[in-house]
């Protein structure tokens, strides 16, 4: 089989993951999670959030630098379960070009090597996976087996290219002190459907096969997140183009035993891209608070690489764009 060609791989090591769940108050993402972390200047390298049902129960997974993990888990006030997983890495591959088969192959590859997936989130260009630090080297080797990276002959080639840049990058990230957060752009995508599924770790290869099958039918997937549950399962939420319900449902049911958890339509995606958005504190808080102030409720959210992606009901798109344009500043010369 021809390998899918990808152009790059990013790794963020030495992180900590905090997973929280709550039943009954959706506004807790802003005041119970994002606000205390922003006030304590804790950088979020990764954030995935999903509203599980109409009763406002939600699941949130975030990653911070390792030294901030314990503080983060104690600062979060959601009135529900908060779990801390130390020593995690975030591995991002790009570009996915909205092809479900990129994520499909990634899930399949990790599952076949029995590398547990602790979380997943997409940006407009990349798909990021959380794995334990102990599994990182194996995961990178697996990615090089599953995909072709023309720029790098081997994992050691790739390691050599990235070594030594982390310290400089941290200095640049720390230099951002903006009163109003500057962004590159807000990109909208409408006419989407949001699907959520709950999958056992042991069934990730099957989900991967299902996504690959959707890709072979030229379906586009601009958004995916995966969050771990206390029962060692993963809740996935993904967006696909509207109007393909029966085919998508059939594809999932033919690959997975578990039924589709929920299906919302129509939804819209907003992608907000800014410098080092996946590494700086306060960005997600600013965004979530802005949407909340206009009464926009998030169906799902992902923050990774340098973008935040939000999924909302399509009828709330205009209000959401107005809120974000009033909150963030487009940079100018």
């Amino acid at each position, binding site marked *: 089989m021809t390998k899918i060609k990808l*152009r790059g791989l990013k790794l963020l090591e030495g992180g900590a993951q905090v997973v929280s769940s709550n039943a009954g108050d959706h506004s807790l993402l802003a005041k119970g999670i994002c606000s205390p972390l922003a006030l304590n200047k804790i950088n979020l390298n990764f954030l995935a959030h999903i509203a599980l049902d109409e009763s406002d129960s939600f699941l949130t997974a975030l990653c911070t630098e390792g030294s901030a993990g314990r503080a983060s888990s104690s600062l979060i006030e959601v009135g529900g379960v908060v779990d801390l997983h130390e020593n995690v890495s975030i591995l991002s591959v790009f570009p996915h070009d909205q092809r479900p088969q990129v994520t499909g192959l990634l899930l399949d590859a990790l599952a076949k090597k029995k590398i547990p997936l602790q979380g997943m989130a997409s940006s407009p260009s990349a798909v990021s996976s959380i794995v334990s630090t102990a599994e990182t080297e194996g995961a990178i080797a697996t990615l090089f087996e599953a995909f072709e990276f023309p720029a790098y002959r081997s994992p050691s080639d790739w390691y050599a290219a990235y070594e030594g840049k982390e310290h*400089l990058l941290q200095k*640049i990230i720390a230099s951002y*002190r903006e009163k109003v957060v500057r*962004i*590159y*752009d807000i*990109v909208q995508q409408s006419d989407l459907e949001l699907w959520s599924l709950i999958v056992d770790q042991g069934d990730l290869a099957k989900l991967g096969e299902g996504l690959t099958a959707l890709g072979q039918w030229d379906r586009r997937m601009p958004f995916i997140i995966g969050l771990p549950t206390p029962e060692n399962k993963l809740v996935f939420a993904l967006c696909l183009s509207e109007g393909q319900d029966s085919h998508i449902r059939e594809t999932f049911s033919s690959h997975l035993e578990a039924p589709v958890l929920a299906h919302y339509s129509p939804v819209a995606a907003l992608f907000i891209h800014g410098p080092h958005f996946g590494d700086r504190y306060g960005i997600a808080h600013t965004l979530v608070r802005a949407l909340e102030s206009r009464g926009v409720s998030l169906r799902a959210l992902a923050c990774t690489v340098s973008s935040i992606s939000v999924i909302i009901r399509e009828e709330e798109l205009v209000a959401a764009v107005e809120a974000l344009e009033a909150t963030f500043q487009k940079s100018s010369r």
Partner: protein
Amino acid sequence: MSKKYVLIVDDDPDLVETVSMMLEDKGYEVGKAYDGVEGEEAIKQRRPDLLVLDVMMPRKDGYKLCAELKADKATRDIPIILLTAVGEAVPTTSYTHAQGMSTEAEEYIPKPVDSKTLVDAVDSFFG
């Protein structure tokens, strides 16, 4: 009339995606590269009408690639827009706007740059 071909070289894949979408919407053909070496190879394969070049990248940074292209007779006429970094606030890094302006690039835009400003700058090269 054939489309103008713009090559974007930046190791931030989300920035490459955002800018390429805007340039494609404006009728440009866009090539993408994610580090200096990949950018160099892309230029050898197809000469761009314009190059948008980040400075801080793995394998080969934007200053070095810019200097090499301007020193080569075959590539010195390719206009370059250099996206410079926030280094003024980080005196120990060389990735500053001032350093960028000391190169021979035709245009220097400090990051973070909004996509429209960048697209306008690209447009200005093609009248």
